[in-house]
């Protein structure tokens, strides 16, 4: 059986969970095993129904009065009880902030390893194989698992979500007993980001600015551009972040975030190796740079040699016109 951990935050299930569930379904079909999902928290029956339509035959609801907010230790205790009982062959988590926090802890509790942040899965010789970037994407490594269950986190925005069907399934509720000392770490409060922006790791389109943006006020240009484009977020190079023109959560690169959007637009970014490490797996790259020798123009699918301050305003107009048609 393949078990997929579905992250619930604020009562919501984000899209990437359904991508991971879909990938789990594809591998479960290939291996000839069932797909099941697990949800943690109170009042989640409605959410479980959705998961059936993505191929889950059974959804485990782990409820406990104290599991309404995230606690890595308590969530781990809950999941370890489930693993003990249902003995999955594979456990998949989204490589989201919660999945990355939790999966290694659960794996260590089960005495097994984890493959982090995988971008491909397949079945080879009857076994699960995963591919993951290492050295910030400067190499790709394939792994199989020496112990069971195989645990992996799968990167959001990489795996296609399937078309939901009208399949139904079974809900399984479990009474949990979680020791008091498993509540030593609890989320007390959710602090919204600046204007609840879309995170770069979740965006389909990223418009990113570097030192060429010249100052913090000019990031407004990129925000306007992002507002015109569907599901877009603003990114930045470290040079822009270190100058405090924009918050570090926008930084793309080896010490920032690794992104693989459908479209990455780089404005006034030279294309240093540490920046490229974080965005080279973008499906399409467009760059605007006034230096025709800038490395970013040698890897962009479409490059413009020019002044970003002159290109962005007409670009905005063109996009507005086109997207409002």
């Amino acid at each position, binding site marked *: 059986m393949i078990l997929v951990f579905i992250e619930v935050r604020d009562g919501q299930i984000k899209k990437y969970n359904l991508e991971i569930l879909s990938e789990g379904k594809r591998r479960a079909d290939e291996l000839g095993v069932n797909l099941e999902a697990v949800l943690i928290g109170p009042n989640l029956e409605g959410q479980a129904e959705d998961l059936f339509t993505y191929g889950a035959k059974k959804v485990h609801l782990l409820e406990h009065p104290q599991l309404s907010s995230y606690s890595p230790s308590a969530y781990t205790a809950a999941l370890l009880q489930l693993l003990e009982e249902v003995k999955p062959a594979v456990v998949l988590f989204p490589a989201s902030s919660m999945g990355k926090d939790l999966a290694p802890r659960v794996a260590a509790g089960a005495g097994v390893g984890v493959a982090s942040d995988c971008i491909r899965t397949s079945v080879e010789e009857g076994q699960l194989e995963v591919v993951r970037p290492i050295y910030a994407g400067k190499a790709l490594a394939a792994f199989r698992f020496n112990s069971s269950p195989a645990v992996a986190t799968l990167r959001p925005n990489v795996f296609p979500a399937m078309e939901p069907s009208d399949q139904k399934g079974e809900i399984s509720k479990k009474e949990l007993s979680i020791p008091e000392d498993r509540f030593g770490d609890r989320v007390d409060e959710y602090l919204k980001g600046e204007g609840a922006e879309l995170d770069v790791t979740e965006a389909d389109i990223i418009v990113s600015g570097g030192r060429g943006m010249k100052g913090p006020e000019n990031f407004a240009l990129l925000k306007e551009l992002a507002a015109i484009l569907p599901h877009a977020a603003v990114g930045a190079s470290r040079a822009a972040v270190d100058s405090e023109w924009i918050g570090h959560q926008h930084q793309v690169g080896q010490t920032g975030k690794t992104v693989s959007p459908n479209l990455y637009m780089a404005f006034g970014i030279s294309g240093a190796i540490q920046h490229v490490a974080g965005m080279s797996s973008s499906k399409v790259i467009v760059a605007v740079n006034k230096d025709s020798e800038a490395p970013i123009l040698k890897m962009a699918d479409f490059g413009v040699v020019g002044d970003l301050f002159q290109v962005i305003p007409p670009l905005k107009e*063109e996009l507005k016109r086109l997207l409002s048609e």
Partner: protein
Amino acid sequence: MNLFVFVKRVPDTESKIKIDHEKRTIVEEGLNFVLSPYDEYAVEEALRLREAKGGRVVIFSVGAETSKVILKKCLAMGADDAVLLKDEAPESYDGLRTSKVIAKALQTKFKDFDLLLFGRQSMGADNAQVPSMTAELLGLPQVNVVTKLEIEGNRGTAEREIEGASEKVSFSLPAVISAQKGLNEPRYETLKGIMAAKRKEIPVLTVEDLGLSAADLAPQLKMTGLESPPVRQAGTVIDDEPVIAAKKIVEFLREKAKVI
């Protein structure tokens, strides 16, 4: 407070990674190795906590003798002591092995601590595993990807970064923390620090000293392939008037790339 910090020696971010296809490893020759960047934030935070509350900062690294260089750097930044947990195994991208070595060392030889500080992810393995795994092996609370930390008596609060927002977590000590950029600004080594670090002995404990057997440390993952990512080819580059360039970008996005 007894503050323990865990640091790893990694290729610097400038490195071009070459692959030895026969041995299925990266070619280490010619790479420049450094203290993993996020670990610097962890060291800095420990030093600041010591300055505010007193206590000791002890640095640990799991790795070969070559890891002593980064331990010296941490001593030069101001750490009190450093210990090498010697493990000569090549990089396996398996966080459980490292976590078991750390957990065993703490359970058997270094039982007295208040806070364990890590980087949020080591450069290279890019695992983000060792902090959570160590926390589970030792049964400790954890807060990862921390951008703000406050300790009051035997409790702490931390802000940790999540998608487009943060969450505030309260926890009890002892605990595991992993540092994210933004937590602080790491200091440079001072000349005095460098001189003192030179003279300092770094004790070495092997995995055998810790009583770990080959079976304890059996690899969990088996690498079955290692390749370079596809090289991106240069596409079209234009040098037109801005208004025309803007039109052409949009045309490209719609007609060729089909992303809008």
